[in-house]
């Protein structure tokens, strides 16, 4: 493939029409919450973009992120994107294994130094010098530190890479941390979610290809286009929340009528992600549409944020100290009470019967 070939040329050579490309841009614009009219401008820029080299490093992960992305069948939009990048290293997907694979990695890093996009999924184990997770005898920590300096940008894919995720859940035995906890001097995009939405990856790559920069990020390093609003904001059940109509159990009348799942522990209001818009399983539905509350998987420490089935307004165990507090309160009150009585009795004892001269100063 010609390195200097643009995306549009590549596509047209593959037999794709301009309208297909336009259609693709329209759907991307929709995904990235750009106005539909922006599709044309995007098509123009994206048409002129070049294919970048991508290196994909898997750390402490479950392969769910890779599954999520590859579940998109070719030639889908996601599939087309993989046509547009040069995926030079991906342990799970590549045909090569062992020393061959390692060689491919090092070649890619050397050839595209300073230009490649580094995708990381999984958290980085730091306990016991990173010994909890090793590839070819080297710890994830080492690999990351080796691969990061040559990357143009790093994409932390999934909640584990973004925020530590489930490996970091209490008590975090492996000392798992996020990519951003280790690498401080590179632009990092966090594409959180457990797993992340595949089209979000596409969107970020498309943005990178279109504009040559990373998209605008929120305070947690996530692209605002996808994480700018909460699940709750975009949820089709939101009007029921506003009307105060809540399902109380998973099999009551409210649940059947599709009322809001807030009281059943839905974390939609504090979860920033695009599930309600992009949906899952070939755009079939998303958890709330299937009748289950959002568990907040794209947020840091979602695993330790109270129970999945506890309403957000419901605290974990608020009456924990009440017994002890009541005992101390009564004791303090009783102590003051006793002291007050003593004080008042002393005042009474000190009473001298008033005589007229006392009224004068």
């Amino acid at each position: 493939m010609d390195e200097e070939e643009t995306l549009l040329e590549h596509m047209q050579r593959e037999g794709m029409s301009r309208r297909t490309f336009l259609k693709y841009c329209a759907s991307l614009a929709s995904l990235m919450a750009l106005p539909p009219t922006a599709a044309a401008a995007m098509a123009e820029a994206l048409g002129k973009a070049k294919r970048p080299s991508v290196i994909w490093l898997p750390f402490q992960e479950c392969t769910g992120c890779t599954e999520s992305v590859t579940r998109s069948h070719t030639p889908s939009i996601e599939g087309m994107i993989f046509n547009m990048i040069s995926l030079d290293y991906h342990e799970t997907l590549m045909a090569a294994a062992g020393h061959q694979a390692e060689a491919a990695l090092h070649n890619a890093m050397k050839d595209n130094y300073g230009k490649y996009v580094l995708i990381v999924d999984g958290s980085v184990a730091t306990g016991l010098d990173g010994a909890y997770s090793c590839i070819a005898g080297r710890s994830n920590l080492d690999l990351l530190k080796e691969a990061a300096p040559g990357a143009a940008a790093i994409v932390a894919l999934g909640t584990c890479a973004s925020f530590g995720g489930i490996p970091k859940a209490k008590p975090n035995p492996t000392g798992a941390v996020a990519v951003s906890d280790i690498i401080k001097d590179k632009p990092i995009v966090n594409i959180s979610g457990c797993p992340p939405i595949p089209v979000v990856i596409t969107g970020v790559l498309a943005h990178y290809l279109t504009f040559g920069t990373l998209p605008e990020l929120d305070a947690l390093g996530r692209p605002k286009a996808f994480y700018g609003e909460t699940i709750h904001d975009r949820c089709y059940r939101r009007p029921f929340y506003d009307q105060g109509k809540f399902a109380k159990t998973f099999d009551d009348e409210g649940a059947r009528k599709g009322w809001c799942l807030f009281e059943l522990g839905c974390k939609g209001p504090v979860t920033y992600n695009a599930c309600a818009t992009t949906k899952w399983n070939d755009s079939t539905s998303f958890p709330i549409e299937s009748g289950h509350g959002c568990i907040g998987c794209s947020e840091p420490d979602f695993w330790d944020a109270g129970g999945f089935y506890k309403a957000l307004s419901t605290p974990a165990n608020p009456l924990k100290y009440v017994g002890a507090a009541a005992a101390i309160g009564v004791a303090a009150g009783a102590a003051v009470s006793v002291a007050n009585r003593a004080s008042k009795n002393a005042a009474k004892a000190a009473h001298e019967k008033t005589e007229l001269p006392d009224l004068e100063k």
Partner: protein
Amino acid sequence: MNEMQLLTWARGTGLNIAIGLFILGMLWRLIEIYTLGRKQDLAPARSVAGASGWHTIVRRSLPPHGMLKRSPVSYIGGYIFHIGLFIVVFLFAPHIKLAESLVGLSWPGLPSQVIDAVAVVTLATMLLVLFDRINNPVKRYLSSFGDYAAWALTFLPLLTGFLAVKHLLLPYTTMLALHILSVELLLVALPFTKLIHVFTLFASRWYNGDISGKRGVPA
């Protein structure tokens, strides 16, 4: 600490501590106040005082003759923000859910549009009563740090709650955490500020009604 951790702390450990301190403070203060005792009244009552204390508890919620005209802001503003606070605190669905998880009691709430409207009116009224406190010579004269602090302690939960629900100013997660933290602050401070009137006013009215009732005067 990120915003999710802040929220988790606020509605976890933070709330545990706040509720604990609230219970501790309330019991301590109520015992401190009401064990001071009072002398038995030896004068024979004109009429049996009976329920006059209880009558006063109810009756004092209405302005005595001529008072509404003398201080309309205190009465009307007072009514609006007290009733508004009651509605927002006790009839907002997530709050009811909280009560249910705490004590197992549930009751019907109001639609969130109604709650929004009540919250806006209550916020505006609280600003008005603050303005009145600064503007009215008597209130300004009586006011010290404690009065403004009590106002702020009441206003903040309402404001942060409203901003959280309407997704204004800060991300919802952060605002919800701030809302819960402000409520915790209120809980901890309540027993030691004039906000304790929420509880003691019933006893105060009862004493007043009882003293007057024995003499045959409905207070």
